[in-house]
């Protein structure tokens, strides 16, 4: 009886896992009629810019992560300075870089919106990779603070 229950539970959980993987883990796609996939009066999709949508989503995530670290340092500046002055100094060296990347990203995005081309999308993705590389770098600057507070930076 016990064996039967175990087998039944295993079978049900594998059916659930398969059904979820087939439905939930799908390739991203745009719902027609949205701003990235507008439709005409008869409901036909005029264009589908999944590339720009994914680029915008990735940029937003990376940029807001970096900005979040900078804001955290600014809001807790005195306390972090007492832990280590190098935290502010390291982030200060990165701040102008983020400003420059943000400006170039938005200039490239404006050009792409006016004239969407594969080359324009590649430029956006290249600039986005620059800020994505900064994400672990800025997070690592807080490691001395985490050590001081007894938080394991590498759980």
């Amino acid at each position, binding site marked *: 009886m016990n064996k039967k229950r175990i087998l039944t539970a295993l079978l049900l959980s594998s059916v659930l896992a398969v059904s*979820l993987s087939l*439905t*939930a*883990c*799908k*390739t*991203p*796609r*745009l*719902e027609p*009629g*949205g*701003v*990235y*996939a507008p439709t005409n009066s008869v409901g036909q999709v005029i264009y589908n810019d999944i590339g720009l*949508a994914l680029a*915008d*989503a990735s*940029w*937003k995530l990376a*940029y807001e992560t970096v*900005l979040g670290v*900078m*804001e955290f*340092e*600014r809001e807790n*500046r*005195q306390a972090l*300075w*007492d832990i280590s*002055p190098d935290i*502010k100094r390291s982030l*200060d060296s990165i*701040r*102008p870089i*983020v*400003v420059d990347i*943000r*400006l170039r*990203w*938005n*200039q490239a*995005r*404006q050009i792409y919106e006016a004239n969407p081309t594969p080359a324009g999308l590649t430029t956006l993705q290249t600039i986005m990779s620059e800020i994505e590389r900064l994400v672990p770098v800025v997070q690592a600057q807080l490691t001395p603070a985490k050590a001081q507070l007894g938080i394991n930076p590498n759980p």
Partner: protein
Amino acid sequence: MPPFIVALLPYISLASRAPAALADLARFWSGVRDEIMKWFAGGLITLEHQRALMDWAKADQAAALRGDVPVALTVEADPVTTPAPPV
């Protein structure tokens, strides 16, 4: 009061609360349904998500091209450290 009325009283009071309870139940199940639909939608980027993302991107683009820089990204002076008083 007839005994059958007395026996029915708890059910009558329950029935009076039923509309609110049913509304709560409907809200609960519609929430469950929405979560299930999200799972089955998989990687669908909905109209609302597209609009929110585009609005954010446009706002950030306008600010960046105007030269507006978030204050957290500006290099400010180091904090002043007050030396400890002599013992």
